[in-house]
């Protein structure tokens, strides 16, 4: 956990992930139960007008889940919300980034930080972006 007295406007340390590989998409299909073949089969992807397989949106959200748990502890994630803005392809390198928006108290009295989070590709495009809330140490 890397929490250190966050203030609104603070940039959070980035998490750089390994390039997206075919094996990762097959493993993620199996582990998540999402067997939509546009993620693992080129023919299916082409049949719906894509030029190749695309990563599961939920994989990039999974990277952001890893990011939040690294930042605040896996048991302290209260909410995470994302939009899938752009497709992620084989070989893409995603980097998770975030900014502290606000620190408040939750209804249960625990300190809570609202974050803006996103995953961007090697061209700096925000492929998956959203917001999150994590509980903070007192």
């Amino acid at each position: 956990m890397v929490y250190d007295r966050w203030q609104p406007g603070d940039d959070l340390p980035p998490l750089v992930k390994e390039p997206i590989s075919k094996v990762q998409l097959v493993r993620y299909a199996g582990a998540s139960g999402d067997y939509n073949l546009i993620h693992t089969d080129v023919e299916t992807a082409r049949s719906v007008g894509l030029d190749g397989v695309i990563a599961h949106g939920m994989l990039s959200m999974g990277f952001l889940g890893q990011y939040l748990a690294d930042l605040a502890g896996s048991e302290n994630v209260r909410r995470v919300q994302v939009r899938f803005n752009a497709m992620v392809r084989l070989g893409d390198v995603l980097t998770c980034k975030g900014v502290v928006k606000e620190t408040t108290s939750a209804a249960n009295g625990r300190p809570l930080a609202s974050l803006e989070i996103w995953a961007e590709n090697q061209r700096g495009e925000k492929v998956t972006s959203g917001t999150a809330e994590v509980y903070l140490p007192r």
Partner: protein
Amino acid sequence: MAIDRSIVGAVSEPETFEVERGAIRKFADAIGDPNPAYRSGDVAPPTFPTTFRIRVPGLNVDPARLLHAGEEYVYERPIRAGDRITCVRRVVDTYVKSGRLGEMTFVVSESEGRDLDGNLVVTARSTIIVR
């Protein structure tokens, strides 16, 4: 593809998912997340509820025509190995928007996951595009 608005309010049958230690570890491995908490399987990664798969009720289309537009999870507590989570999925909205790929239909659904005592554990809100 147009979707009849009568789909709004459709509710799935409840389905119970058992959270297995090995499934947590495989899920973390697939993401490439080395967090030791997931190696033991005591806690599940935040996006693990995606494995609680229930089809969108009332939506009968080829899965290859579906795109995931967005997802939100709200956690009342962490999910742990040994949990049995009963989920119900409900369609809450559908609308049409014009975008880069032409006219697209959005379907928004919400799933509630409860433990054996009936306590809410996680709420998922999912937006998919039907192309």
